[in-house]
């Protein structure tokens, strides 16, 4: 370019000034090393997932090949008696057991958690919020074994007195286990849904109030729909927690693999089966050992699907409002 020549004429560097060095004084190997070390730590999480998948899949593969259990028998069989003679490996009863306790838990926790979230986000004064939200978060840290004990020694007798149909085989009951799980996941729903609703821009609320809407209408017709993907994400995450919960169902749901959604019935869940069976001394390579992993694989797949769905929903609302 002809233009450059003209400009180049000004480019004379004053000889009196010392030459400046733009190159790095040292190759900074340390900086690069640190980056790689940090990346390796991040990679460890991927390795964890890989390890989970591998440790689940290998015995599961044995379960279906060496142990000779058919995939159809496993997924659609209605009898679960892996340690009996003759054994049957139909996962449906414990799958339904898991779904049943989770369902009763969600039935309790969703309305309560969402109501708490609406109050926190739309009604609470900043001061009330500053107290209630941390309290909920602290309570969310109650270990599930404590919640299970509460369900077993307090909720179960109480409900047996009030609604006898809820507890057929005292003190075990899918419904009571669900209630205890519900208590466990209420803080999750409340806290995450509150976050989602608060990330709805204030302008939207003001516009609705400006049109003469009541607070109830603004909450239910404006803020709630606007935050819906975040709210769904919170519900799905809570559902995933309910499905994966072990201690509560071990203590409260009983251990009978009944294929039923009846809240009064005692059920065995997938997690309870794993927890119960793996505690005993079982040898590697036995069919019981492999069964744990087959059930674990199914549980992993279910929670993985729920988690990925929730992560997607969260990304969606972050994209819209952040």
């Amino acid at each position, binding site marked *: *370019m002809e*233009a*450059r020549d*003209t*400009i*180049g*004429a*000004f*480019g*004379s*560097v*004053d000889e009196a*000034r010392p*030459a*400046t*060095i*733009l*190159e*790095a*004084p040292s190759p*900074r190997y340390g900086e690069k090393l640190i980056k790689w070390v940090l990346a390796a730590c991040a990679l460890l999480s991927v390795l964890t997932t890989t390890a989970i998948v591998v440790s689940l899949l290998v015995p599961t593969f044995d379960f279906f090949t060496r142990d000779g259990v058919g995939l159809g028998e496993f997924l659609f069989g209605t009898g679960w008696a892996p340690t009996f003679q003759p054994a049957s490996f139909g996962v449906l009863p414990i799958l339904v057991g898991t779904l049943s306790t989770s369902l009763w838990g969600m039935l309790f926790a969703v309305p309560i958690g969402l109501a708490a979230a609406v109050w926190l986000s739309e009604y609470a004064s900043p001061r009330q919020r500053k107290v209630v939200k941390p309290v909920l978060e602290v309570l969310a840290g109650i270990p599930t074994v404590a919640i299970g004990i509460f369900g077993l020694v307090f909720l179960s007798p109480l409900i047996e007195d009030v609604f006898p149909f809820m507890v057929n085989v005292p003190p075990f009951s899918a419904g009571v286990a669900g209630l205890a799980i519900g208590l466990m996941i209420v803080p999750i729903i409340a806290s995450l849904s509150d976050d989602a609703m608060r990330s709805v821009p204030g302008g939207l609320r003001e516009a609705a109030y400006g049109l003469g809407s009541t607070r109830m209408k603004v909450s239910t017709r404006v803020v709630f729909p606007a935050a819906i993907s975040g709210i769904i994400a919170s519900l799905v995450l809570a559902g995933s927690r309910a499905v994966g919960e072990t201690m509560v169902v071990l203590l409260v749901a009983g251990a009978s693999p009944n294929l039923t959604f009846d809240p009064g019935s005692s059920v065995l869940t997938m997690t309870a089966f794993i927890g119960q069976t793996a505690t005993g001394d079982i040898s590697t390579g036995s069919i019981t050992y492999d069964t744990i992993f087959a059930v674990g694989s199914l549980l992993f797949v279910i929670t993985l699907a729920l988690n990925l769905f929730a992560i997607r929903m969260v990304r969606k609302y972050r994209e819209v409002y952040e």
Partner: protein
Amino acid sequence: MGNSPTEQPGRTGRPNEDGQLHSEKPNDDRSPAQGISVIREPARNDDDAWTKDTVFEVKGVTVCYSGKPAVKNVTMDIFRNEVTALIGPSGCGKSTLLRCLNRMNDLISSASVDGEILYRGQDLYGTKVDPVQVRKLVGMVFQKPNPFPKSIYDNIAFGPRVIGMDNVEERVEKALRRAALWDEVKDRLDDNAYGMSGGQQQRLCIARTLAVEPEVILMDEPCSALDPISTGRIEDLMAELKEDFSIVIVTHNMQQAARVSDRTAFLIVELDATEDSRWGQLVEYDETGRIFTNPRDSRTEDYVTGKVG
């Protein structure tokens, strides 16, 4: 907004009806190359420029974010021991251009710089060039005061410490004195910098930059978050500092550019025909006095007289 980017560069007539100018848009076939010629012309006639040292030679620089140009084809020389101001409406890419000069744009992964920038004759974007080293030589002061959440002393001492300078304590005092802050803070060096006023914080940030003894100081709208008194102090400071440093300042305050700078570059926002992309373009670069009293380009005149922008 109101400025009319469609005007012909050579146009001297003062446009009095915007509508007519817009109607000319489809006929506007001015290529970027012609655009540069407008810029180059004043420099060629500027006798003073021949005798001065250049610090930066910016040659046909285009900066893109994710492939979209933010500023296109800028060519200008920046001189030693002068205050050079970049002015123009918001979105004209003046900050983007400034950030190229100490490679702060490297921090944005989607940003790419085409063209050539020479720093005292060396290619600033050469393969062997280390951005960290560049930033030691070309310091930067930001729009919003950004002191570190540490004591006043540690704020200043951080720079000298990380680049391994000796006599840190002496340097801290010297930097604070140079930034005319010493008398105000000498008794509370251990206080957190967040307790200072906005103006003091910004002077602290300038002092922090001075402490590593750069050759050039870039200032990105350093006074836009400050009150008039603090602004005045910083402007006085710039006048003193240019004895030892070269300063490039981005400002949207034209009066400030007129007060403090020796040379001014005026950039505008260009829109393409369909208006779905926009970028900044250098219109005119000249001595500040000339830009504000007798600009060559009517768009500059419209802007500095407050007609548009």
